[in-house]
């Protein structure tokens, strides 16, 4: 009982951060099971698990809301962020520990609500779902407030803004974006609940409940696409630099690009949610903005590739997943350009092309970034690195699985847009073959996660290893032993001070952020500084 009570009142950022991650892990498996059920239903229609189209639609909603809200929105931001944001800026806690705790319990409550909503009749279930989403949004907004204040006011001495790791920048920008988006979502939830329960008419009623469920889902998730992926950008940038042993290329450009992503996303969504259909120019503006997201995305890509260029890469599992993220982001992003065109044939929400695009960019790419973060920070969180061999098997199986899954899904969507001669049905053997391939790939991908579970379980059972305090030789603060919040902690440089080991004549090729400047040995006389600058474009 005392254990239970103490776990309820815990407000330590590491404890709460881990809880978010466990919550996300459980939801990932629930979400995967629902997707398997949906694949089986699509391939062999009939009342196996879901009795009616209504139940199938609400199953889609459960899958979507678990994955989008709990996994994609929570894990990279609230999970890893709550755990590592304070340590990366040299603070001992979040700005408001009790708010951290409140945010977590609101999130947990909303997850229960979202799952329970599935078991009600559609009309009641919708209200329960909306209420849970409102609770989730309030929790997320409170959390975002906490994040932003922590990043603004709790930085250690010398941790100037340009010296913050890119991860912190991403969390911070995302927090500001979340403050704006989630309060708007709460407003929408309030209106929708009033419409359902108090007979108001804030929204003009539309067609069947199934369409309403799907539209609602897209309304909410459109806002969250970049809320989910922004922290992933940060994590991937951080990992690429660390494993390439080079400073982040165009550090300031990356930060500006992250801010631009946030700005464009909010604008795009606001335009779409409130103005679309009001005047003929709205779709054009929407389309232009959606296309303009490509500019910051390209800056990020240029930075990643330039950092990787001519580097001595270390292909750890974490790095593989980060590179996998880049690969998926590029292939998924290309279809995004296609979809952002205003004149694209009115793609309905159930379209396989939209589905494939959305899953590849948002779902799978973000999941890869999260797995990268998990493999990267696991030694810090549990005192022992995950097995690299099992990790690599897990990576390659998953990587092959998701490409086999979502590329055929794109083809299905394109086939359905083909102008067919009269009398030819699209349900030919090619379509059936593709459907079979997708289901087969779903099974492979899900089975590959078994390797991951095994890896985590085996590693957790092993005893903590003192040698693993900084296995990746990263330079940011969370890997250094500092007394957090103490007056003695001073940051002297940016988080990406990597250089060839010859510069210091020793074996170290990096400088921790808090190492005093006196530690830097003068370069050997034979060394030519022009040949390998310490930090060519970074400004720190």
């Amino acid at each position, binding site marked *: 009982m005392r254990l239970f009570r103490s776990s309820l009142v815990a407000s330590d950022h590491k404890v709460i951060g881990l809880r978010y991650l466990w919550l996300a892990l459980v939801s990932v498996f629930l979400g995967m099971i629902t997707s398997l059920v949906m694949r089986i239903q699509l391939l062999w229609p009939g009342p196996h698990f879901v009795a009616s189209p209504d139940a199938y639609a609400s199953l889609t909603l459960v899958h979507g809301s678990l994955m989008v809200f709990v996994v994609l929105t929570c894990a990279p931001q609230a999970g890893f962020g709550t755990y590592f944001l304070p340590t990366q800026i040299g603070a001992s806690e979040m700005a408001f520990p009790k708010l951290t705790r409140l945010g977590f319990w609101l999130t947990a409550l909303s997850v229960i609500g979202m799952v329970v909503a599935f078991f009600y009749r559609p009309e009641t279930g919708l209200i329960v779902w909306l209420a849970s989403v409102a609770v989730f949004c309030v929790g997320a907004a409170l959390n975002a407030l906490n994040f932003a204040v922590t990043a603004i*006011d709790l930085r250690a001495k010398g941790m100037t803004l340009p010296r913050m790791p890119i991860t912190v920048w991403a969390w911070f920008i995302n927090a500001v974006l979340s403050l704006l988006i989630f*309060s708007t979502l709460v407003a929408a939830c309030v209106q929708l609940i009033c419409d359902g329960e108090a007979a108001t008419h804030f929204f003009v009623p539309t067609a069947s409940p199934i369409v309403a469920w799907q539209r609602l889902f897209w309304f909410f998730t459109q806002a969250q696409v970049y809320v989910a992926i922004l922290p992933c950008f940060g994590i991937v940038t951080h990992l690429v630099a660390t494993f390439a042993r080079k400073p982040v290329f165009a550090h300031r450009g990356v930060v500006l690009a992250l801010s631009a992503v946030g700005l464009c996303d909010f604008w795009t969504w606001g335009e779409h949610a409130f103005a679309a259909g009001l005047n003929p120019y709205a779709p054009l503006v929407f389309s232009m903005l959606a296309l303009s997201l490509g500019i910051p995305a390209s800056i990020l890509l240029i930075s990643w590739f330039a950092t990787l260029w001519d580097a001595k890469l270390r292909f750890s599992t974490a790095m593989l997943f980060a590179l996998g993220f880049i690969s998926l982001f590029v292939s998924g992003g290309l279809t995004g350009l296609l979809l952002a065109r205003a004149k694209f044939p009115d793609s309905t929400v159930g379209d396989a092309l939209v589905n494939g695009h959305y899953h590849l960019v948002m779902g799978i790419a973000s999941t890869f970034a999260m797995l990268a973060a998990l493999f990267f920070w696991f030694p810090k969180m549990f005192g022992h690195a995950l097995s690299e061999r099992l990790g690599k098997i897990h990576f390659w199986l998953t990587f092959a699985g998701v490409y086999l899954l979502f590329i055929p899904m794109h083809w299905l969507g394109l086939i359905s847009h083909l102008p067919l001669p009269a009398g030819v049905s699209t349900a030919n053997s090619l379509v059936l073959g593709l459907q079979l391939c997708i289901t087969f790939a779903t099974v492979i991908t899900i089975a590959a996660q078994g390797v991951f579970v095994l890896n985590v379980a085996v590693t957790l059972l092993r005893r903590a290893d003192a040698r693993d305090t900084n296995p990746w030789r990263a330079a940011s603060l969370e890997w250094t032993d500092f007394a957090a919040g103490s007056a003695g902690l001073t940051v002297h440089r940016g988080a990406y001070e990597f250089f060839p080991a010859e510069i210091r004549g020793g074996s170290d090729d990096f400088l921790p952020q808090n190492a005093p400047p006196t530690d830097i040995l003068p370069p050997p006389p034979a060394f030519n500084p022009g040949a390998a600058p310490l930090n060519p474009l970074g400004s720190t």
Partner: protein
Amino acid sequence: MPGTDVLDELDLVVEDIGRGGGGKPPERDEHRGGGGDDGSFRPRRPSPSQSGQRRYQTAILLGMVSICMFFMALSAAFLVRKTGKDWVNFRLPSIIWVNTIVLLTSSLTIDLARRRLALNDLVGFKMMWRATTALGVAFVVGQVVAWRDLVHMGFYVGSNPSSSFFYVFTAAHAAHLIGGILALFYVLFRDFRKIARLSLPVAAEVTSYYWHFMDGLWLFLVALLFFGA
């Protein structure tokens, strides 16, 4: 304020030269109020940023942005929905204007309270603070009366989009205002000597920011409901 340090020091240097570096503080400094900055002759009061209290000011500012967004979303919906064919206008209940004056007065009293506090007049501060709290409660009661007037006029939550918006706007504003009233009570009854991280002046300052914001928000909403309808 860390930003003014350099200017103060410069000021000091100039005066030192002019007076030949006398040990006496410059004359004009003595005429300043108790909260004035005396350069570096006396030990400086720790600024909020040094004692870790700046986070409360940052938090309330960011929180206001977020709340603003919530009401902007509702206002956008209001402006869009207003063009619908089923929109019926109604006259705002007259008690709304009384409530507006009550809330404006409370903004005045909370500012007077903070002035008293700056002069270290704790008794005066408590009195003005209590007055603010009472006015806040009176405002909420007044809003309930406004709702009853509307019900008597036959406008229920669901009868028309315009009345729905009125109820949702006032209810959402009242919910946020009740949060402010709780903060007022907290400042009134909490013993700040027992809290290491938060002092009474900062708590009062942060609460007053929020209170003024609620006031401004209400003016905006009344204007929207009055002119927009």
